[in-house]
């Protein structure tokens, strides 16, 4: 029978199952198929910190949401159009996010009395009519997979484990996805286990065939490729983009990369990634703790490397003293903080923007450090390159605030032309700069206020650095009151001066007559952008700007803020940027905050934005 193919412009699919069900892999494969088809896309993995929480329980539910479209999109989507629930726990944990009329596909094999009781279902929701407002598809995924694989010499358990590939096959049929990528992936992944490989391929094919033949699914859907700007694309997560950006920074500056890091969620992937690329001369050092990670990175920087450390909030706290030493010794150092929900251990796998004030002020003494924040997964690449530029030019530690959403979320990335990346070549100091051949390690460049970087091995420039206050010029220990005042102000002026060297704030105000500006920073760019589009589609007028440089702010930020009657600042914290803006510019910004471990929903922000616009009128 020929099935009807319906054209749609976008869809949001959420795969949900037990931690061991392979939902992240399923989502990732579907994403790759979608990317290679040419849709624009955005993803949101959401998983527990526990590696294998007890099977079938609510804490063990892992999900992967994918939004793809035939046009440019900005977020992983608010509410799924399709929920695939592999067990009762996955249904229960996710059904509240699913709007009426959406499709819900459940694996009925797992809806046993025992599994239902485990999550508090008194009766089976698949049968008791409580899912009546959804388009419910009951599919015995597990048993159909086992049946499809009955001719294979594998255990029942291994057969059951292939059910995620059955589900992927079914969804791939439903959305007309290209399958070569997934087939190739399975062949490579199980190259050493030919039977398992064949079983997974068969399960995938069985899922596809089931969609095509069963009458349960009368319609399949097509989402046309999005008209993206010409170029070569790949799908990329924030952590991968930061890793590549750091490698690029090393190559562009000519500084060998040294990463000192201690494993921590959600930053560890950067350590894993960089450790694979030793042929770029990259040294990765898995330290005994967070302090040693940054300490070793600083030691390597003293030796002339591009010193990098990667971490998340709890690790940032431990690194504070060394970041202070880096700013006192005025050596380049990149500190990547992939923020997660805090305080303390918080929620390691959930996102938050709450380390901003720590990055700004979380050290003893007057200790200014440049702070940058990427606005999307792909932007992590550019921010890492920019952080390298600032650190190398100004001889300073630089903090990059990524977050869990950017780190694990993905989007298509148009590959940059390597030839057009900035030249960041660093010239070490090799000649004395003082009278009589003396070397003055704290004699500054008059423009940047950066001090010379002379590395061990350079004859005649031997000098000593340290955390004790330095005498201007000579860098010798100094307790002289006036010198300390001078050095504190000079260090501040050096960082403030970076504002001359960063682009003005881009303001998106198409009509030029908006009264309301919405200003965000970091990982909220997509949600805010999507909300702005909604408001504009509904006839509203609003301007949007997004900060990637937070310390120092772009030089024109104050002027931009004063141009608008009202400024809305949405943040996934309790108003940290708002505090900075009010303190710095005396502008009474409106703070909108939420801290539920997830990105903002576009609809919610659009509502808030509309309210602010209505109040302004």
């Amino acid at each position, binding site marked *: 029978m020929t099935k009807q193919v319906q054209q749609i412009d976008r869809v949001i699919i959420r795969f949900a199952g037990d931690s061991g069900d392979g939902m992240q892999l399923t989502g990732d494969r579907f994403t790759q198929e979608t*990317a*290679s088809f040419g849709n624009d896309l955005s993803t949101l993995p959401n998983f527990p910190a526990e590696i294998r929480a007890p099977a079938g329980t609510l804490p063990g539910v892992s999900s992967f949401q994918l939004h793809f479209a035939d046009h440019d999109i900005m977020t992983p989507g608010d509410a799924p159009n399709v929920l695939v629930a592999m067990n009762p726990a996955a249904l229960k944990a996710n059904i509240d996010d699913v709007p009426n009329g959406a499709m819900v596909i459940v694996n009925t094999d797992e809806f046993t009395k025992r599994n239902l009781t485990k999550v508090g279902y008194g009766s089976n929701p698949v049968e008791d009519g409580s899912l009546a407002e959804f388009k419910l598809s009951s599919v015995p995924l597990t048993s159909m997979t086992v049946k499809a694989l009955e001719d294979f010499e594998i255990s029942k358990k291994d057969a059951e484990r292939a059910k995620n590939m059955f589900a992927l096959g079914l969804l791939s049929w439903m959305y007309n996805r290209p399958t070569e990528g997934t087939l190739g992936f399975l062949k490579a992944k199980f190259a050493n286990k030919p039977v398992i490989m064949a079983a997974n391929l068969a399960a995938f094919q069985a899922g596809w065939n089931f969609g095509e033949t069963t009458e349960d699914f009368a319609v399949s859907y097509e989402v046309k490729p999005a008209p*993206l*700007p*010409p170029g*070569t*694309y*790949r*799908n990329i997560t924030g952590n991968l983009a930061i890793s*590549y950006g750091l*490698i690029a920074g*090393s*190559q*562009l500056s*000519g*500084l*060998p990369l*040294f990463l000192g890091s201690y494993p921590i969620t959600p930053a560890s992937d950067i350590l894993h990634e960089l450790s694979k*690329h*030793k*042929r*770029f*001369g990259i*040294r990765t*050092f898995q*330290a*005994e703790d967070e*302090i*040693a990670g940054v*300490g*070793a990175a*600083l*030691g*390597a*920087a*003293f*030796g*002339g*490397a591009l010193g990098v450390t990667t971490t998340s909030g709890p690790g940032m706290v431990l690194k504070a*003293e*060394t970041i202070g*030493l880096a700013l006192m*010794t005025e050596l380049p150092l990149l500190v990547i903080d992939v923020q997660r929900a805090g305080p303390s251990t918080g929620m390691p796998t959930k996102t938050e923007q709450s380390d901003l004030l720590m990055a700004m002020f979380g050290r003893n003494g007057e200790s200014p450090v440049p702070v940058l924040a990427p606005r999307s997964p792909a932007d992590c690449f550019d921010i890492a390159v920019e952080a390298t530029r600032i650190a190398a030019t100004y001889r300073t530690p630089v903090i990059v605030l990524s977050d869990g959403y950017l780190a694990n979320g993905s989007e298509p990335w148009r*590959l*940059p032309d*390597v030839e057009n990346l900035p030249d960041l070549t660093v010239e070490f100091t090799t000649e004395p700069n003082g009278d009589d051949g003396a070397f003055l390690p704290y004699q500054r460049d008059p423009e940047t206020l950066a001090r010379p970087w002379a590395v*061990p*091995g*350079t*004859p*005649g*420039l*031997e*000098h*000593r*650095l*340290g*955390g004790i206050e330095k005498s201007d010029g000579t860098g*010798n*220990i100094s307790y002289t009151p006036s010198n300390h005042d001078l050095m504190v102000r000079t260090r501040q002026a050096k960082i403030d001066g970076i504002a001359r060297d960063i682009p003005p704030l881009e303001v998106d105000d198409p009509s030029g007559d908006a009264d309301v500006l919405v200003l965000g920073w970091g990982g909220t760019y997509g949600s805010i952008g999507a909300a702005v589009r909604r408001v504009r589609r509904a006839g509203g007028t609003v301007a949007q700007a997004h900060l990637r440089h937070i310390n120092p702010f772009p030089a024109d930020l104050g002027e931009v803020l004063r141009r608008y009657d009202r400024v809305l600042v949405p943040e996934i914290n309790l108003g940290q940027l708002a505090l900075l803006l009010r303190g710095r510019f005396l502008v009474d910004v409106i703070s909108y905050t939420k801290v539920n471990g997830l990105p903002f929903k576009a609809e919610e922000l659009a509502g808030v934005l509309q309210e602010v616009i209505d109040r302004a009128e």
Partner: protein
Amino acid sequence: MPNETNGAAPGGAAAHNDGFAGLRLVPRSDTTYKMKDFKSDQEVRWCPGCGDYAILAAFQSFLPELGVPRENIAIVSGIGCSSRFPYYLTTYGMHSIHGRAPAVATGLAASRPDLSVWVITGDGDGLSIGGNHLIHALRRNVNINVLLFNNRIYGLTKGQYSPTSEPGMITKSSPMGSLDSPFNPVSLALGAEATFVARTVDSDRKHLQGVLRAAADHQGASFIEIYQNCPIFNDDAFEPLKDAGERDSRLLRMEHGAPLRIGADRGVVQGDYGELSVADVAEVGEDRLVRHDAHRADPGYAFALSRLDRPAFEHVPIGVFRDVDAPSYDERMAEQLAEAETTQGRGDLAGLLASGDTWTVR
């Protein structure tokens, strides 16, 4: 733009050093230095009579022996009295953070095999706040030389008990006596399987320099405990080991291949279970004395030696406890980088960015 610095150092050319084994990746100097070449113009600000002066002088007069260009020597310290050391030398140096010098030095040494890196620390800096970094640097066998000045007291914070203070010690923070059981730094280093472990005394320049020489000749991490007198807060703590009348009956001067003797009458014997004890030579006979072997692969023997000084100072081994060959961390790291480049080719940025599934929009 091309990164030419994969294995070699940004500052200096990789050269071969035919002198000390621990310096084989460090260039050799054309200059013959004198002690004064290593004295900086900074005023030395330790208390009068501090053991640190003697160690500094011994170190400055030893450095010319290294045969290494001054610019290829880096001294990294933590915080504390001893950690002011780098300021008084004309080499590269970093006075870092309390306890963290081994971590900073690890990054420097691992990325710059062409440097001779020395860590200066104390009993508080290296064993208390920085104990973790110390043991990990030692087990990794990073090519650094750690000089731990042990004065058994906190000096710079004015006299609190340290991790090596004896139990019951009355200090500012222990008016009724310290409750802590102390570390034996040598035992600790051996427990971390350090490949070179030695002990010496601040006032014995000849012995101190002999140990420094042996450390420089060792590839990988070297750990040297230096008994150092603090005349202000713990004066004469090591007096029994220095007093001309007493020291010979207390010091066990270890020399590789020679019998372990304390003075004329006593020596070290091995029991049935490998344990070591001190016995009268006249009773046990000369032949039963253990001949010192610093090169034993198993650290158990050296550990047993390190336990001989209990109760404190009755018989104290000094010299090299352990000196075994093992590849150093920086060397192995450089090998991995070279191997990656050999097997996969030099990194190509454009190729990297375009790796994985890509698609083209026209």
